């Protein structure tokens, strides 16, 4: 069986959905963060697959950019989590309801 573009896209989609499910249903902040990373990885996978099957390098360059952005975002996000824990709160989403109207 030849592995075509569709297979890569299906895998990417699955990864994305799993990540999404984790973001929506897990309570621990760190786990939510890891799932966000998973979603980003899924996006990068799709980009690289498109790049390979088109024969140019545009997707791969974009994937590199995604990775760098993800790294910056992790730094910020982890700092936020540390700040939350410093306040004495547990690292879960249950008590982070400051934006309630």
């Amino acid at each position, binding site marked *: 069986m030849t592995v075509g573009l569709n297979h890569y896209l299906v895998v990417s989609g699955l990864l994305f959905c799993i990540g*999404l499910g984790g*973001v*929506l*249903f897990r309570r621990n902040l760190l786990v939510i963060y890891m799932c966000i990373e998973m979603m980003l990885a899924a996006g990068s996978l799709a980009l690289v697959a498109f790049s390979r099957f088109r024969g140019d390098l545009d997707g791969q360059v974009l994937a590199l950019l995604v990775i760098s952005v993800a790294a910056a975002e992790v730094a910020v996000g982890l700092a936020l989590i540390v700040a939350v824990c410093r306040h004495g709160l547990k690292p879960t*989403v249950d008590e*982070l*309801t*400051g*934006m*309630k*109207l």
Partner: protein
Amino acid sequence: MPLISAAVITLFGLRRPGLAGALSVGAAAGVAVVSSLAYTGRPFGEPWQCSAGWLSVGELIVPVGLRFDPLSLTMSLIVAWVSLVIHVYSIGYMRGDRGFGRYFAGLSLFLFSMLLIVLAGNLVVLFIGWELVGVSSYLLIGFWYQRPAAADASKKAFLLNRLGDFGFLLGLLLVWSKTGTVDIGELEGRLAADPGLFGSLATGAGLLIFCGVLGKSAQFPLHVWLPDAMEGPTPVSALIHAATMVAAGVYLLCRVFFLLVLPGSAALELIAWVGALTALLAAVIATQQDDIKRILAYSTLSQLGYMVMAVGASSVSRPPVAAMYHLSTHACFKALLFLGAGSVICAVHHEQNIWRMGALGKKMPVTFVTFLIAALALAGVPPLSGFFSKESILASVLESNVGTRNALFAVAVAVAVLTGFYMTRLVAVAFFGPERTREAGQARESGMILTIPLVILAVPSAFAGFWGIDSAYSNQFNGVAVEHAGVVERIAAAFTHSPVATACGLGAAIAGIVAGLAVYWNAATDRLPEKLGPVAGLARNRFYFDELYAAVNGSTHELLSRFADGVDRWVISGVLVRGVHGSIELAGRLLRLTQTGNIQIHAVLLGAGVAVLLLIVLRH
């Protein structure tokens, strides 16, 4: 001239009674002289017009036009002379009143407006004069404005007048839209050339203009303002409400007579019946009134109904000469009656109830004799003027083309009987009989300035039948002069001309007088209520028309205001204002539910939104 007088008095003379009186009488005298000269100066029978450009809007060209034809010349002559007499009388009657200057300003304004109506060359100028006499009437009826009854009466008069004028204006617009002109001479010409111009609207046009007459001449059902108008000073009642303004309606009908006889117009029959109904209604009410001025007011109403009926009974071959004839003689003797009543009222210290007078005949001879002449003329006793004019009306009704003419004639004769009856009642109770109160006993003849006008007016009341007024009016309508000869021949001519009508009229007058004498000679109190019971009660209370109108007015007002209140409260305030507020608040609250503060809920919603968007985009 009277306009200048009115303006000058208002600007300068309100505090100077002498000046006001002199100016006003001078203006009236000037008008009388000019109209007499105009009457004799021109070749009689040809209309003569003069006009100056005034209003030109698109296709509507309204010059300020005057028209001098036999109708207007004769009418203006009568108006001028009666007004002059009443102006002189007013100087005596209103002496010492604080509003002396204001009174004469109003009187001069009225004279100007009345002349404008009479001499108008086109319908718009006539309408202007029409409204102006309404204004003058308002000012003069409410002259003693501190009295609430007077203020109410003047308001009522003006409002009812306006109601009629609304119909008049509609009719005027209809005429203009169909014929393209408002000039009276041109109208006549165009309608003669093309009688079918109005088509089916002929009746409507005629009736709408008749609406104006309903208001101004106080026909049923707009008649309720005239008796209340007696709150004004007596000379005002004499001038405006007996001799001239109320007659303006009949004059208008004769002016636009060519409009009413268009083929296919049923206006005339309706007009005749409205007139007859008014005449009968007013005559019945008059038999049970106790205020001398009210009796005369209802008598005026009744006579106006007569005149309107006479117009309605006319046609192309028998023009409404009778109506104008009666108008002229009525102006003289009704004015005389009112002025005489004023003299009586002054003498008994402003008491107006006839049951508080009595035996005035001996004490006030001049007033009594002139009053008697006028009363007999009104009842239609030969050889006084009223006999001739009444006879001509009865004859024209009997010989008319109207289908129901016999019924109309019967009503007219009945009214003649009632006329004789109530006038006899008035004269017998006020002038004969015992002195009923102390004031009556102290009455003395009034001063000369009051009695000389009475005598002056008594002359035409008695003799106008011989002056050929009807021939003057005949000139207007078909250009044929009716020749008359000496005194005896005239009376005989009345009998040979139409024996049935004359006999009935005379018989009715005599029957009325005899009945009145029988009931009221030396009567101490009014014996009629016991004999007639409920009918007398109805008559005394004016058939409750005023109460009916007040109730209708009040209930409509109530209904409308409740409806408006409901709309205001429920629709505007409730639905619109609070509804908008509420719905926006509801939307806000619903949206607020989504902001839980829970990050994951937000994420869910975000994801759902993206999914929906994707669906929409991919579907397209």
